[in-house]
C-alpha cells in the first residue's frame, strides 16, 4: 500500500512521518506537494505537523486554500484514511473536514513533552492495534492544541464514538480531554499528539506505531487495495 505525506510551506514534520512509514512501518510512502491537485494512487493520506504559512493568522487557516485541498476533500469523501497530526489536525478543522477548532493552550505557551493518552475507542481504522482503554505515551508539541467545540458537537462526538484519544492529564485545556477525533464516517482522524515521534524505543517510546499499523491493517484487511 502507499501513503501520501502532504507538505505545505511551513510544514516541518513531513520528513518525520516519511521516515516513520518508510523505515519503521516499512510501507511505500511519497511526499506530495501542496501544489499538486491529485491524490490518485494513494491508499492513505498523512498531513504533518509544523507551522503552515507560519500559522500566522490562525493555525491551518491559510493552508486550507492550497491546490491539494480539493483532492484531499474528495479523497476523504471516498472513505479512505486521512490522518492529520498537530498542524495537520488544525488544517482539517479549518478545511471543515473535522468539527471544532484548536485554540491557544490555556497556559498560552507552547508545550513539548510526552503525555499519557487513553485509547478511548479502539475500533477506528487508526486505533485497532490498541486495546480499549489502553494507556499510551505520545509526545505533544504545540501552542494551539486546546480543542474546542460547542456542547451539541461534543454530544455528537460522544454519541458517534468519534473520540479516539483522550489526555490523561489534560495539558492544554481541551474540551472533554480530547486529544484526537474522527469525522462521523470515521475515516478522517485529527490528533494533536505526534505518533510519528514515538515509533522507536530509542526515542523514548514506540507507542505511536499502532496508529500507522492500524491504518495498514485496515487497508490490507479489505483484501483489495484501493484503485
Amino acid at each position: 500500500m502507499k501513503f501520501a505525506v502532504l507538505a505545505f510551506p511551513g510544514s516541518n514534520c513531513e520528513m518525520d512521518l516519511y521516515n516513520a512509514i518508510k523505515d519503521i512501518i516499512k510501507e511505500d510512502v511519497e511526499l506530495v506537494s501542496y501544489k499538486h491537485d491529485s491524490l490518485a494512487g494513494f491508499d492513505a493520506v498523512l498531513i504533518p505537523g509544523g507551522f503552515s504559512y507560519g500559522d500566522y493568522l490562525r493555525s491551518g487557516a491559510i493552508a486550507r486554500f492550497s491546490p491539494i485541498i480539493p483532492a484531499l476533500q474528495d479523497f476523504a469523501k471516498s472513505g479512505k484514511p486521512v490522518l492529520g497530526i498537530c498542524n495537520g489536525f488544525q488544517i482539517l478543522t479549518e478545511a471543515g473536514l473535522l468539527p471544532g477548532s484548536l485554540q491557544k493552550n490555556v497556559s498560552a505557551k507552547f508545550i513539548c513533552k510526552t503525555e499519557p493518552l487513553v485509547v478511548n475507542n479502539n475500533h477506528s481504522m487508526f486505533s485497532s492495534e490498541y486495546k480499549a482503554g489502553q494507556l499510551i505515551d505520545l509526545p505533544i508539541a504545540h501552542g494551539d492544541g486546546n480543542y474546542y467545540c460547542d456542547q451539541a458537537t461534543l454530544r455528537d462526538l460522544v454519541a458517534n464514538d468519534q473520540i479516539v484519544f483522550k489526555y490523561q492529564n489534560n495539558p492544554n485545556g481541551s474540551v472533554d480531554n480530547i486529544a484526537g477525533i474522527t469525522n462521523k464516517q470515521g475515516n478522517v482522524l485529527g490528533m494533536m499528539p505526534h505518533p510519528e515521534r514515538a515509533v522507536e524505543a530509542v526515542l523514548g517510546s514506540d507507542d505511536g506505531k499502532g496508529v500507522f499499523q492500524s491504518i495498514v491493517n485496515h487497508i490490507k484487511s479489505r483484501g483489495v487495495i484501493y484503485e
Partner: protein
Amino acid sequence: MNSVMDQTTEATPEQIRDNKLYQSMGLTDHEYGLIKDDVLHRLPNYTEVGLFSGMWSEHCSYKNSKPVLKKFFTKGKHVVKGPGEGAGIIDIGDNQGVVFKAESHNHPSAVEPFQGATTGVGGILRDIFSMGARPIASMDSLRFAEPKTDADKYFIQQIVAGISAYGNCIGIPTVGGDTAFDDAYAHNPLVNVMSVGLMDLDKIEVGAAAGVGNSIIYVGHKTGRDGINGASFASFQFDSEHESQRSAVQVGDPFEEKLVMEACLDVINNHSDALVGIQDMGAAGLVSSSAEMGSKAGGNGMELNLDLVPQREAGMSAFELMLSESQERMLLCVKAGHEDEVLKVFADHGVNAVVIGHVTEGHNYKLMHHGKLVADVPVDSLASQAPVYHRESEMPEHLKNVDTNQYQPKITNPTETLKEMLSQLTIASKESIYETYDTQVQTNTIVAPGSDAAVVRVRHYDKALAITTDVNGRYLYLNPREGGAMAVAEAARNIVASGAVPLGITDCLNFGNPEKPDQFYELDQAVMGMTEACEKFEAPVISGNVSLNNEYDNIPIYPTPMVGMVGLIKGLDHITTQDFKHADDVVYVVGKTEPGFNGSQIQKMQTGQISGKLFDFDLDYEVKIQKLVTAAIQQKLLNSAHDISEGGLITAIAESTFGNQLGVDLTADLTVADFFSESQSRFIVSVPQEKQAEFEQLVGNDAQKLGKVVDDNHLFVQANDGYFDLDVDKAFGIWKGALPCRLK
C-alpha cells in the same frame, strides 16, 4: 559618472568632517582619518561613512578582539574548516561533517526581548545553512539577574518565548542550553544561541564571489528600515543616558526563514555548478555580506545597483539600504548564464530572489542608486583592512590582594541547606523553560534537555552527537584564566558524561569594554585559559562570536565566555544519562573533593556575594578523570554518569535521583560542607553490582564508593559531621517548582 555623488538630503562630506558626524555612527577620529587619508585620499560621503562604520564595527571587524582570537587553539586532524566568518566544520567520518557556531544577541534582546531572541536564533541558523549544512539542533545559553519585579519576570518570559517561537516554527529542535541567574547581568542579560548542522563534506560552500561577470543575487525578505546600523549599535555600550539608542528593532519571521533555508539547501545540493558563493546577511546587512564576499574572492571588484534591491518602504537612502538588518536575507554569487536556473529554484520555493549586481574588473566596490554612483571604495578596505587594536591589559583591582582562604560554609542543618540549595534559581530545574521548546522535531533527539549533554543521533548511522553549553561567570570574575579553562572543562565533562568524546568548541565571548585595560585583561586571560584547556582536550575552537561592551553605567558583567561543545558518540549503546537506573547499583564519586568555595553557589547563597581567591584547578587531573569515565562508559561499566558542578556533590546526587525517583543510601568520608564544594574534575556514577570489581580495577584510587541506589524514594547521605535526609519527591518538588514559582 566618475565623481562620487553625495545626496542632497544627507550631510555633505565637509559637514561630516567639520561636525565629526562620523562619531555618532561609531567611528573614531583616528578611524575617520584612516578612511580619508589612507584609503580614499578624499573625503568620504555619507553613504561611505556608513559603510565603514558598519564594517569597521567590532561586530564585523573584530578590531579589538582579533589579536586575542589569534591565541585560540584551532587545529586538529578532524578540523575541515576553522574560524572564519561562517561556521566551522569537523569531519565525523562517513563523508559527513558537523558544522556549528554560536551567536550572541545580548544588546538587541535587552532592548526588545522577544524579537531580540527570535532574530538571534534566525541569524545563527543562516550561518549554518549558508555552509551547505542542514541545521539539526539548537541550544540557548541565558544569563539573567534574579527576577524581582514583574518587569524582570516578563523580560525572561519574553526571551524564552522568542527562542521558542522561532525554533519551533522553523522545525529545528532546541535540545538544550544553560541558564544562570546573577545580578551581575542586571541591565545586561546574555542571550547566546548555538546551532549545529550536518552536511556531506563534498558539498562545502564558501562565501566568496569570484569571476568577472558573475551575478550577485539577493534572496529573501525585502529590505526595510528596521535595525539600521545594528552592528555599530551592538558595539556601543548601554547606560541610562543613552536610551535614545534603543530603536534598532528587527522582527523575525521563521516562516520566511524556513522557505529561504529549504531553497538555499536546494541550490547548494542540486545546482552547485551554478553557485559560486553564498553568504547570510547578518550584522551590517547588505554591505557586510557583499563586501566580505567580494573581498574573499580576491582580485575583483563588485558593483551593485541599489534600485534593484527589494524594498519594503519607499524612499530609502543608500545608507539605509546598505546597513539595514532586515532579517531572513541571503546573498549569492552565481555564474554568469546560470541566473535563471537559480532564480527558478527560489521561485519554486516561494522566495523572492533578484539579481542586484555583478562581479567587476578592478578592486572597487561601487554602489549605484537612482542612476548615480553613491559609493566607490576599495573592496578590501571594508572587509579586511579595518584597523586592529592591541589594547592595554591590566589586572583589575578586585583581583589584587585577594583573600586566599576558602570560604567556610555555615551549616547547622544539612538537610535544610540542601533544600535551600535546590531552590536557588541557578541550580533549580529549567524544565519550565525547555518544555516550551520543541525538542523532538526531526525525530533524532535521544537525550532531550534534563541530562548533562543533549544527544542527537545521526540517522542511519550508529553514531550520535552530544551537545552542551557551559560557563560560570563567577569563576571567571575571580580568576579569568582558570575560569576560562574551567568553562571548557565543564563542557567536556558534560560531553563525557553523556558517553561522547569532545570534537571541538564554539564560543561567545561576552565581556565588557576592551578599551578599559582591566576589562581587556579579563578577555585576554580568559581566552588563554580556554585555549589551554582546548588543547588538553584536543577540542579545537572552530567558530565563535564576540560580544563586547556588556556593561551598564560603567559596571561590566562578569566575564562570560560561553562554551558550546560538540562531542561524538561512536555507537548508540554508549549513550549515558545522569539518572540512577536501578536499585542496588553501586554509587561512586570519581575525582577528588577539595575545598572549592570561593565563587561557589553556597558562598553566594550564604553571603550574597562571591569573593576571595578562586579554588585551584588542575587541568591534567581533569583530563585524567574524564578519560577514566570515558573508558568506563566504553567498557559498559556505568548505568549513569553525571558531572559535578554548581551546588557540588550533594546537588549532583540529588539530581541523579530525580529522573527515576530512586533513592540512595550513601556514606562518605567528607564533612557536610564538603558536599557543597565546587572543586572540579568530578563525576557521580552508578555501577551495576556485577561490574563493581571491574570498575574498581579500572579507576583505582580515583573513585570512592559511597553506597547504593535504593528504591524507597529516600535520599540519605551520611557525612562525618552530620547527614542529609530527605524524601526524593520532596527534593524533586522544591527543585522543579522553584523557577516557575519565581517567574509567576
